[in-house]
């Protein structure tokens, strides 16, 4: 689906196909409902946000409307309309010598983005996407490039243009996956504005920055939520992190947050999460993460060996093929355990920031020797729950 190879060590082809058969009628029903919704607004525009639209989005946007809905409801479309021509400008700027380092880092990751997706490995044009011959694209085609895969050239341009636009982030590994998946649903200019919206508006500050302190803060928030709402799991995991040598669970969960679950959840489940994420905001990531823990509570508590547990946590989202069940659990069955709104999240993030800063200052002042200032590595290590 979407060019991804079906089936891997975590999920067999048969399991996926079985689910697809089950899910097809639901997909069909959603498609009809959405078409009816659009007809109500006869002018072909997407309806303004309402509780009905939100409910529809939580139940899944049909694939043919996905790109459009993401752009519209996230605000990225408006962003783009206000900045016509800006993307092309940034692409032109990005060939400047001073961005060479970014370009090199991005180049190294291009071929490592979805190496198992046919669209990222061959010159086959995408069938899903509305392709427009933008002036940028045609100009670049005349230049000799290292790759002949159209989507990789788009990926390169979007990532470098973003690095130019946002120097505090530049290029952060994991954004290649995010943009890669976006490009399967929209044009490159749209993907660019979607990326800006995600990094600058949806995700908290500092998530993808050079110090990645936003990751640390959000993981602290997530662990606190786990402890409060699923004490059994919270206890199990904190017991491990207290044991020497046991890897903290935040190694696993920071990956979930950075990639917005790309390559973590099976693709259809990932897309259902994105449907909600782009409308509702980053609290969706917390809700989904908590749901994943809740769905596997018994297994987590039953595994005694810390390393086995770590491996289990690493792989558990990869089996969630039933996207409908995941979202049902998230917003209905376990809603009391996963619920967190934007305001509460803001408060928790502030608290987490204070806690991590305090932990950092006590760790550094405890160092008796007049050592030089801790390296960045050491300071962030102190921020994590070691």
């Amino acid at each position, binding site marked *: 689906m979407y060019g991804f190879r079906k089936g891997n060590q975590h999920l067999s082809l048969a399991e996926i196909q079985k689910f697809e058969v089950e899910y097809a009628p639901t997909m069909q029903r959603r498609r009809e409902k959405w078409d009816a919704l659009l007809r109500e607004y006869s002018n072909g525009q997407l309806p303004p946000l309402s509780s009905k639209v939100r409910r529809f989005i939580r139940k899944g946007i049909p694939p043919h409307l996905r790109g459009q809905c993401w752009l519209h409801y996230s605000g990225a479309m408006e962003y783009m309309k206000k900045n016509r021509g800006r993307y092309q400008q940034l692409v032109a700027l990005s060939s400047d010598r001073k961005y060479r380092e970014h370009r090199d880092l991005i180049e190294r990751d291009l071929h*490592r983005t979805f190496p198992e997706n046919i669209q990222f490995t061959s010159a086959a044009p995408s069938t899903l996407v509305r392709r427009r011959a933008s002036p940028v694209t045609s100009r670049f085609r005349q230049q000799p490039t290292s790759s002949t895969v159209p989507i990789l050239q788009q990926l390169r341009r979007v990532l470098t243009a973003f690095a130019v636009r946002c120097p505090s982030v530049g290029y952060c590994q994991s954004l290649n996956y995010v943009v890669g998946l976006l490009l399967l649903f929209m044009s490159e200019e749209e993907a660019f504005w979607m990326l800006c919206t995600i990094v600058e508006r949806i995700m908290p500050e500092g998530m993808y920055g050079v110090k990645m302190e936003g990751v640390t803060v959000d993981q602290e928030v997530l662990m606190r939520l786990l402890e409060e709402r699923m004490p059994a799991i919270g206890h199990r995991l904190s017991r491990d992190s207290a044991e020497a040598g046991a890897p903290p669970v935040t190694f696993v969960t920071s990956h979930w947050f*950075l*990639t917005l679950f790309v390559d973590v959840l099976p693709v259809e489940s990932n897309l259902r999460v994105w449907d909600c994420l782009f409308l509702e905001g980053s609290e969706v990531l917390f809700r989904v993460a908590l749901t994943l823990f809740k769905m596997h509570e018994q297994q987590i508590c039953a595994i005694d060996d810390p390393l086995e547990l770590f491996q289990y946590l690493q792989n558990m989202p990869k089996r969630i093929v039933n996207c409908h069940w995941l979202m049902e659990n998230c917003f209905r069955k376990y809603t009391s355990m996963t619920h967190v709104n934007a305001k509460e999240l803001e408060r928790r993030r502030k608290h987490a920031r204070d806690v991590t800063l305090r932990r950092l200052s006590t760790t550094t002042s405890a160092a008796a020797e007049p050592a030089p200032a801790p390296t960045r590595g050491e300071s962030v290590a102190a921020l994590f729950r070691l």
Partner: protein
Amino acid sequence: MSMHGSSLEAKLVILGSQGVGKTSLVMRYVQNTFSPHSASTIGASFLTQRMQVFGVIRRGYVDDCRVVLQIWDTAGQERFRSMAPMYYRGANAAILVYDITSEQSFQDISSWVEELQRNTGDIDIHVVGSKLDLAEKSREVPQERAQAYVRNTLGSLHDVHEVSAKDATGVDELFHDVTRSLVERTYEIERTRRERQAGDVQLRDGRQEASDQACCNV
């Protein structure tokens, strides 16, 4: 000839710059597979591998030791480096990978060595040059120079390993050397401890009491 069926569990961390082939190296070793473009690693991933080291001298006997290697494969981008201390904390060995076709990636090795030596007790460091299959076409780091650096920095008994995950050259040998070195070090620590203990006992009451438990866990 195995006298003791010993076993050892050890933690190995793989570090190095972005795109030098850390994941490919691990995949070649653990799964014996190679894909020209493996997905970039975000954060870290964790694998275990069981192996056996034959013929190590332990308490005067030749011993075979079963080893469970916990392998931590990490992200290479500079900004993820801030998380590295959490990966190498408690590690017994580190493989530092550079790409023989990239001078910069080799330059980056020294800061890893310094960081590990500063922050860890006595981690066993191995320096590895990857992408040996590209040596003829685009080598930037001469082997002699890498070797000289390794001997200078880590001691005269150390060698640089040059490997290719693509054609499998040197990969099994590398991991075998790493594991063997881990086992030998463990036995060495064990021996020193026993001797010290024996010395203590003799001083106290002249009775020699060697502790016989296999204290093999590093």
